[in-house]
């Protein structure tokens, strides 16, 4: 069972969370009406055998979405943060 460090609530069990989406997806701007750009947002994915950023939700906790950097080969979690956080920046240095 995974244990995920919610950036707000601390380390919690997998059953409190739901996986939401690829964590790198940025929705096209509202003014953007390109079908291609929306296709890429909605459908295209870059599979990562290894470390990838994901969006999860602490659905049975604080309800917040969080970014999770996780290894898809080992299930190790290397970092978590708020949705807008850059996980490359160490936690203490994030604004």
């Amino acid at each position, binding site marked *: *069972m*995974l*244990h995920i460090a919610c950036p707000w609530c601390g380390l919690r*069990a997998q059953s409190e969370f*739901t996986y*939401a*989406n690829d964590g790198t997806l*940025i*929705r*096209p701007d*509202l*003014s*953007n*009406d*390109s*079908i291609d750009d*929306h*296709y890429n*947002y*909605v459908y295209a994915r870059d599979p990562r055998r290894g470390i990838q950023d994901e*969006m999860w*939700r602490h*659905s049975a906790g604080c*309800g*917040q*979405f969080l970014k999770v950097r996780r290894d898809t080969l*080992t*299930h190790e*979690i290397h970092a978590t943060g708020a*949705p*807008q956080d850059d996980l490359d920046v160490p936690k203490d240095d994030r604004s």
Partner: protein
Amino acid sequence: MTGQVFRNGAGGRIDRTVPLSFTFDGKNYQGFQGDTLASALLANGVRVVGRSFKYHRPRGILGAGFEEPNALVQLGDGARTEPNTQATRVELFDGLTATSQNRWPSLQFDISAINGLFHRLLPAGFYYKTFMAPANLWMTYEKIIRRAAGMGRAPTQMDPDIYARRFAHCNVLVIGGGPAGVSAALAAGQSGARVILAEDNPQLSVSETELADMDNVTVLTRTMAAAYYDHNTLILSERIADHKPAPAPFETRQRMWKVRAQQVVLATGALERPLVFPNNDRPGVMLASAAQCYAADFAVRAGNQAVVFTNNDSAYGAARDMKAAGIDIAAIIDTRPEISDSTRELATNTKVLTGHAIIDVASGRGGATRGVTLKAIHPDTGAPKGSPIDIACDVVAMSGGWNPTIHLFSQSKGKIKYDGARAAFVPGQSFQQERSIGAANGTFDHEACIIEGHNAGAAAARDVGFDAPDARTSPSGIPPAAQPLWSAPTGAKRFVDFQNDVTADDIGLAYREGYQSVEHLKRYTTLGMGTDQGRTSNVNGLAIMADHRRLDIPEVGTTTFRPPFSPITLGGIAGWHTGQNFEATRQSAMSAWHEAQGATFSNAGLWRRPEYYPRTGMTPAEAVHHEARHVREKVGVVDVSTLGKIDVQGRDALEFLSRVYINNLTKLPVGKCRYGVMLREDGFVFDDGTITRLAEMRFLVTTTTTHAGPVMTHLEYLAQVQWPELDVHLLSVSEDWAGIAIAGPNSRTLLSQLFQDVDFANEAFPFMGYRETNAGGVPVRLFRISFSGEHAYELNVPADYGLNFWTALLETGADLDVIPYGTEAMNILRIEKGHVTGAELNGRVTADDLGFAGMMSKLKPFVGQVLARRDALTAKGRRQLVGLVPADGETPIPAGAQILADPDAPPPEFTPAAILGEVTSNCYSPALGHPIGLGLVEDGSDRHGDTLYAHSPITSETVAITLTNPVFVDPAGGRLHG
């Protein structure tokens, strides 16, 4: 103590003051408190306890614990019966009943043993090569195969017992209560760390009062560590009441622990390997450690005269203990050409034949062992040579070396490695926060185990910040005894996997046919696929395959160790959450009232909703029609509490909603509602509902019952992740407000009577209007919206008042003839009005398909807008919402029918049948007096007036239907607006 002829008068860990009666295959026996079923059977001289899977050969007890492949019994009967139970792990209790398995008609005479005669026709994988002709007979063959397979019988009555699960957290979890594990738990416990120690046996191997006195240490006995998952989560299965005839009242039978441990210490011990030689499955052939265990722990002699057969030193200790218990050791047969002096000292006064091996086991009555034949073996090749020697015996105690129990280590993703000196796989690099110690780590020396345990326990505690005792120095340099693997190179029926009847020849056949990878070997021969999961067979099987392939064992590889370590009950895994408790149930504030009226219920997500209220003298259908008709004629109330309700507040609430609904909302004033539709990002319709502007910056939006959760998640995702700059606060208030719809011509009068301070006149409170009032101190929200198509309102009150308002409406409206109606009537009313719900909102329709194109704002961007423009979503030929009426005006439209032009068209070959559409909803319309339906039909909007067929071959119904406008009742909306 009659009958326990193989029990010694003294010794062992049993309590002779507590005699216990039990039955096996209907026969009565006696044992003692502290016995296992296996030890008690052996004490009574019961040798044959089961039949093998394929050849139905008689089998006896091989081991003394987890490793047991043969002695599987059907435990108990009736509701508490339990198949495939290892007799070696069943604690004896008074009144225990057990039955042997996989034999018919009896254990002594098993018809299927005839399979043994045809064994030449039944090599590994024989079924892949035969039973193919004639093709239509396979299902018959299969029935016979199925009947022959299986083992125990599943219970057919409800399990009366209670199972529980629980979570636990600790700093250090120690698995295994042997010397190493206890030592580790002590060291970790002394540091103050929170420690859990789990041991499968009823007691720890060493009595340890210091451990028991530590508040920070939890000792769980009768607890098997079943699985090791990610992030140091382990599953433990605790047997609380299995050693009793039945649990006490309210007592839990088994408790499954889900432990999150910061550090784990695995002290899971080692299991002995059998040796592979002809007829090594005869009852009486057992593991040396098992014979030793029965002698030492249970004071049971496994037989009268034993031959010990070994390739390593450990069996000499077993021989000593067996001899001490009174078993005559006829000889120790050692495959090694030489043994050390210290080893030989252990066998003083016992005949030792080195460089020899057993090449056959003779059987007597019932198949039990009565002697062995030996030969000298070639020191390099292991091939038998010279003349045979016969020795009479009724026990063969064999030892092929030891396998560290690395299952949990392997499950933890630790890398295992082959240790040639120990001839075994041992833990290599750990992956998680884990340490393996003691025999599980290939350390077999008692003192070394204790020190290794101490050091691991202390280090684990130190790693999580506790001040733990210092490491002790291990008496290193104790070499493991040389234990070359040995198996007889030839001879019939050399069993490798006892439970699945896999022989060395089967492995040879797999090799010759190319099933050489370990996984192919396993799958082709079924090696290691029994309930014991290959505990006694895997390494021997690998060694034989390696030998064929002329590879070293590690080059052959191993199969993956899958959870659970040893089988665990399904009841224990599910705990509370089965049957009625499978999932939570959501109830509205009026649920109890509906129940009291005898309503039937249906599930909508987790909610239970009343379908209709029975009426005396009416069939269910008549009652439903009555409710629907009554709403059109008078007034009815329906519980709509289950609709999703989301409170949306903030400076940007309007902007946010404009982005997620297709509607233009900028002109929605405070005090008004609007019907709204949401698309998914992919452009298809997601959900519909109403949007009400409660205040300048506050909205209440509703969702369908089943989509409430997904819609909330969707909105939160957008608000939190994609548009964090918007000031918007979302809260699900579905359960805060009870919802009641009041529908029908009399609804206005009814509400006017109840809320006298509200002006219900059309101008003051028009269709799609919203009003708030306060009734006796209770805040009330009134919406003039309609799902039924009638003049109607929805009323929201804080949920605790819901039941009171419901009954108040019924009381107040008694003169107006108000009745309650359920979801069935509601469904009829909305079909009559052409309103869509689940079957139409099927996740594959566009807004245009449902006739909502006009709602789609062109003035602003919204979610789904762009991908809704894709070719396939805008092409001609899409299915559109239509009304359906039977062409003859009376035949019911079959539910789930498909709509075609030609119901007699033959089935196609490669191009899908020409189906034009489907019936999505259907009912009898009391308002119209005939059946109606809704459907999605290709270009349906252009086909009004066409006649097609609603074709339902699955119910043998075909009905000519005419396509119409989907709004059957009041298409002009006079009732709504009036």
